[in-house]
Every structure is written in structure tokens, then in C-alpha cells.
């Protein structure tokens, strides 16, 4: 609001000028600040040298820990958006924040809903047994799509296996385990 003279012809002190508050913008700004803080915190956990960079290899873990569910291919997209050609091995905090802030705001990479995951298991369970064996899992998960390595597969099987039986997994219960809530 521009300063106007009052009746006595005195211009009010511009420092005391009143501005209209915009509650929507303020709340957006607060949300933005909160996002930035959250992103920075996650980033810092992997910033070993405290120099505002993380190794590119850790991007997947950081992004997923924020609750996003990108595929490896989608991660590659994200990486190429924020990586620096002169230094491809590390990602700088600034670029990370810019790219991730937009991604969080737009709520991208939210992943498939639980119903689709159930369907996914049903698809793999070709004979409709109600379970998938370790061998079958190995054939699918380690050889197709975006394959698991040994360590990933081993960890996968430990949560897949029923406590009683050794080889068989009932996938309905398994989904509970798979879709772990992010604590935030």
C-alpha cells in the first residue's frame, strides 16, 4: 500500500506502513520451509564430509527414505536432472533441493496402491496357488525387470518367508510387510 498524506498533509512514516497479510501464501511458504528442512535433513545424513554433497550412488536411498517410490529408471531421470556434468559422482545440496522440492510439491512417484501390488503377486502366481516359491521369486526378481542383486534378494526372502514353513510365502500377508509406513 502506498503512503498517502493524511488530512494534515503529513506523510506517514513509511516504516510503519501496513501490508495486507496473505494467509494462503504464508501457509504455502511455511509448507515450503518444512519441505526444505526435511529434504536437507535427509540429505545431510549422507553428507559424510559436511560439504553439502552426497555421492550419486546414495541418491536412491535418500529419495526413497522421503517416502517416494520411484523405479530405478525413474531414479535415473531424477539423477540426470540434478547431476553436474563436471562432477557426475556427487550431487550438490542446492540442485537436490531445487529438483526434489518440485517433486514433493507435485506429489510425484507416489507408487502403486496396495491393490495393484496384490494384483502384481496374483499375476506372478500363474497357477493361482496362493503362494509363490523362492525359486519362482528368484526367477522373476533376480532376472527380470530391474533385477535384485544377491543382498537385496536375501533380505527380500527374509521378510517373505513365513516363520513356520521355510520355502513358501503367502503374499497377502507379505504385502503388509512390503508397504512400510514412513514414520514422518
Amino acid at each position, binding site marked *: 500500500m502506498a503512503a498517502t498524506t493524511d488530512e494534515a498533509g503529513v506523510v506517514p512514516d513509511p516504516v510503519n506502513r501496513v501490508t495486507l497479510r496473505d494467509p494462503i501464501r504464508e501457509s504455502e511458504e511455511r509448507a515450503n520451509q*518444512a519441505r526444505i528442512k526435511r529434504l536437507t535433513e535427509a540429505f545431510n545424513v549422507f553428507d559424510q564430509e559436511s560439504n553439502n554433497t552426497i555421492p550419486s*550412488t546414495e541418491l536412491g536411498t535418500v529419495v*526413497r527414505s522421503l517416502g517416494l*517410490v520411484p523405479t530405478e529408471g525413474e531414479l*535415473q531421470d531424477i539423477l540426470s536432472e540434478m547431476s553436474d556434468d563436471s562432477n557426475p559422482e556427487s550431487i550438490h545440496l542446492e540442485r537436490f533441493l531445487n529438483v526434489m522440492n518440485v517433486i514433493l510439491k507435485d506429489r510425484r512417484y507416489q507408487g502403486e496402491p496396495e491393490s495393484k501390488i496384490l494384483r502384481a503377486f496374483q499375476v506372478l502366481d500363474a497357477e493361482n496357488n496362493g503362494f509363490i516359491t523362492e525359486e519362482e521369486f528368484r526367477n522373476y526378481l533376480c532376472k527380470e525387470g530391474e*533385477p535384485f*542383486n544377491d543382498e537385496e534378494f536375501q*533380505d527380500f526372502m527374509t521378510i517373505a518367508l513365513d516363520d513356520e514353513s521355510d520355502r513358501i510365502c503367502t503374499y497377502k500377508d507379505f504385502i503388509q510387510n512390503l508397504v*512400510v509406513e514412513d514414520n514422518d
Partner: protein
Amino acid sequence: MLSEGWKCFCCPQILKYPRRSVVAPIQHPPSEPAPSQPLPQTEHCSPPPPPRPVRPKRKKSDITLAAVVIIQTWFRRRRALYEMRRKTAWTIYQNIEYAGEQDQLKLYNFFLELMQAVTTNPHDAQVVAKVLRRNSSLTGLAEELDLKHLTTPEAITVESSYRGPHIHTPIHKGHFEALILAFQRGELLHAHYVLLILHELRHILKRLPNVNIVSTHQSRYVTVVGDLHGSLADLMVIFHKNGLPSNENPYIFNGDIVDRGFQSMEVFLLISVAVIVYPNNVYLNRGNHEDHVLNLRYGFMKEIIYKYKSHATRLLRLFENIYSWLPIASLIDDHIFVAHGGISDITDLNKINEIKRQKYISVLSPNFIIPANEDQFQISSISDEVLLEWRQILDLLWSDPKQADGCEPNTYRGGGCYWGPDVTEKILQKHNWTLLIRSHECKEEGFGYSHDKKVLTIFSASNYYAVGSNRGAYVKIITNQPPIIIQFMATRATHKTLTLWERVSYVEDQAIQNLAEKFSVNKSRLMKEFALVDPGNTGRISVNAWCDIVSHVLDLQLPWRTLRARLVDTDISGMVIYESTFRSKELRFTSNISTNPRRESLCQAIYRNKDLLETVFRAIDKDNSGVISMQEFTEVCSFLGKHNGSKLDEKQIMDLAASIDLNKNGVIDFNEFLEAFRIVDVGDRFQN
């Protein structure tokens, strides 16, 4: 169509493929094999199979592919959450460790400053002098005779009731093996024999140069072991996997043998005997913890006093002297330099060789630089020459590598430098070396490379922070071959590798408990600040406010937002119910005394400073009796209070001591006093 190769996320040429089609081949360059166990991000990459054309008719496989990717993607998310939790727990441990070290060293720097200025308060001066005064102020021949007189094994007789191992000169392999068995059974070696072994060791060490010259010419290899920190379990794993030391199986122990772990004495003795039996094939480098000043604080002194009671003074005195005779670095085959901490921009082998290392009883605060008794309070004009020589040895034992170029003082640790890749390059060229091996820093995998693989960190104490927190590793240097690194983790069930889920839950558990304890000993301060941002007394504050306050009061930079859910309760609207910060741990007295808010706050302040208080008390207590005068006790408390801004009022403390009924005839058993405060579990444990 099956794709054979593993996917390397780090490799640049990954093809992006759309979801609902046949898998396109993944092209990536072959990578070098991982040292032993493959790390998640670096895998073997094999050359890609030839591409198959897309066949739109095979719709079933498209759906299958999509299904597979869904499962893989969701699993990776779960895994990432756990990796994040593990890394966060790791961050907690590292921050707490460094905060503790920083505190200790801030204190010593504080003392140093005081010493160098003309003090107006004679009381303060005396406290400082008492802490930093060495056990003996003699030098040269007088010192040597005094040492021999005080620490001769003849002064201690071995009772007929003693059932442990007996050691006699000449010490041989049989003794070594007997000691291993005895220590594994939990037996204690008699002080008489400890002194015997230590004197034999000292005799050998005195003849050694500052830098061990190690050659793989005869044995074809040498094994380098990093920090052990009193972990007998890890030493046993190493001997089991790599064989006992011998003339055919040489070892270099790269320092930090003692402190932290509770079997520092046993580990040091075993290594000493190895040196005595194979003096030309077992080498020792001094670590920053081979220093009586650090032993005060980090456990070795406590261990000796606990295990050897009335003989502790003698043993401590001898250890103090032996440390000064330890070599400070090793050089393998003229091209691999091994030192505990690392190097700095001034590191020079010629200058190192000239140092009379035995002058440095303590490397952190050498007494010939810091006045030994309270009369010498002049403003020290330490010459540049003296300072530079001190830096040569300090930097070797205390430095850490950093990613960026340059060399700057290591303020984190309070000693040594952070040195960059350019400094490494320069020094390798200057001396014609190819590799620097160092320890000093705990690594999750037990080892780590820096500076384009020209610096190797090797750390041999597994489970350093908590069970499952990290692996240990050692390295074999073979003539003209690249180093081979072997990892291990000392657990009861060593045959079973823990899954990621198991490791995370153990490690996190301990870390969260540590934080809960910190909350309880900062309760008064925290509640005060919480109340300030909660004028309406609702008991609730925003997440942001909680994170800021906790970070500020505890002075710990941690991912509080990520940790919050495991530490406090929130209400439906997402506000933090701040009283729940103290839901799992509470600081209590073991005896029944009346408490009021002021006294509670005082007790928390005392507990927060417990380590420092203990350290200073122990330093003052020259005869290691556990008892100091009430006067000294209150002086120390208020002195430390001034140092870090806590209010440790003399009168209040005396009242407290009186009410715990510990002030007996003007002296106080400080161990009893400190033990009167305990952290106990209360109410619900933290949520999982």
C-alpha cells in the same frame, strides 16, 4: 527375455526403459571386483546380451514385467527406509563420540589457555596444575632410576593362591599361547607378570627407530591391523582368520590398542608378548590413545584401577613411559607408509627420524611444552621449532583425510589436521611412496579408501558403537600386489550374517537409548525452553520448535525430524507432546534424599559432566585411592561448571554430598558420589 547383468546404479550409461514393454538390454562397463563382500551399489557388471525386438503380441509378458517391477520398486523403498535408519543410527553414534571428544579437548585447550596466561585466581591455577601434572617431574637418568625402582616386578610377590598363568624369562611361544587361552577363559594376569612383560617390551622398544622399517622380502606379505580398542574378541577373530603372529606371518598393529573396550590390558599384553617373541616381525605404531591423558578419560585407566587396585599406580606409570617409546610410524617395502592418524602438509620423513620421541610422554599435552608444576606460570614463548616438531608427531597420530584440497587444523578432534588429496599427492611424490595406510576413524565396512585410492583407512574393532554397527577389517600387503582387505564381525554366532533388518534394529535400539538418556539429563533445561514457546501451557509445540530446541540444548546436529517419531509422542494434529520426551529414561538417586527443582537441575548438570568430572577427579587422585579431599572436590565441580556454563554451585554441591552422607571427615569417595546418580528406565519404552 532374461537380462543377465546386474544393474549398476552408479554407471553412467544405463538405458531408461518404459514400463510396459519387453526388457531392453542394460549396457554398462565391466567394473572391478569388490574386495570381499559385495556392497549394494557396486556389483559385477557383465556385457549385455543382444537386444530382442519388441513383440506386441506377447501381452502376458508385459503384464508380468510390470508386476515384477512393482514388487521390486516397493521392496527397494522398504530397504531404503531401513538403510536410512541405519545411517541415522550411525550418525548418532558418530556425533555423540565426537561431541565427547571435542568436549574433552576443549577442556584441555581451556587449561592450556589458562596456563599460558597469568592467572589471578590461585585456586584455579592449582586445579589446572593438578590435572596436568605428570606422575613424575623427573627427567633423564633420575627418571629412569625412579621408574625402575617403582615398577620393578620384584616389588610384588605372587601369592600361592594365584591360579593364573605364570610367565618367566625368556618369554617364548608357549607363554603366548598360554596367555591366549587364559584370557579367553577370563583370567587376569598377575601384576607381577604384567610388569615383567612390560619391562621386556620396553627393553625392545627402546632400541627401535621412530619409523619401523618393514620388508616383505622374506615372508612375502605383512598384515596391518587397525584400531582394536580393547576388543579381545576382535583380536581373536583376526588370529583365527589370519593365523597367529610368527616369523612367517608378520603383523603391524597400527595403534589405539587400548581404551573404550574393557579388555585393553589383555589385548595389549598379547600384542606385547608377540613383539617380545618375534621382535623382527611384529611391529607397533603409537596411536592417539596410547597416551595417559586419554586413558584418564576413555577407560584404560579405569580398567587398570579396577583390575589391579593397589598395583594400579605402578602399572600406570610404566604404561605412561612405554607409550613414549612406541614407534610412531612404519614403512613397508619403502613405498607404503603406515601411521595411526595420517599426515599433514608439513610431514617430512627426515624430520620425523630426528625426533627424540621419548620426550613425548603425552602427545596431546607434552609436559615439556606445558609446565609441569604450578610455579611455572609464565606466558610461554614456545619457539616455532619446538612447535613444528610437536606438530610432526601430533599430525601423524591425530589427523583425518578430507575430500577437498588443502590442509586445515582438525577442530573436531582438537589436534592434528584435515588433509586433502593434494597433500597426499605431494607427499607420495616427495618420498616415492604409493600408498598411505592409516586407522583412527571407525568405518562401517571396517575399511575405506580416500584420495583416489591412495589412502586406506583400516579399522579393526567391529561392533564399535553397538552390536551390528560396523564390521572390522584388516589388510594384507603382499609383495608387488594390490592390498587384500578381509572383513569380519565378532559376534557370538559368527557363521550367520545378520540381515539388514536385524542389523538396523540392534544398532538403532542402542542409539535411541543413548538419546533418551541425554534427554533425561537435560530435562530441566529442555522443559524451560519448551515452556517458553508454549505460553498457553498446552503441553504441545510444533515439530519445528521441538527439533530446534533439542538440537540447541543437546548441541547435537542430528536428523531430528527423521528421529522424532521414535523419540516423542505427537497428537492428532501433528503437534509434539513435549513431556513425552522424557517418557523412557529418568535420572534418579539410588539413595532416598529429598529433591526439589533446583537440586534436580544440579544433579542433571553433574550427570552431564560425569565423564569430565570423573576424569579430573582421577587425575587429581594421584595415589589412585578413589578418595579426594572435599575441598578439591568442590573446587573441581565449580571449576568445570565455569568451563561449560553449568551452574555447579560449591555450596549446593556440598549440601548434596552431605545429604548423600558421603562427606566423611573432609574427604569424599568420588566413585561413590558419581554412582549415586543413575539413569533408570521408566514407563513405556520408546515405541518401535
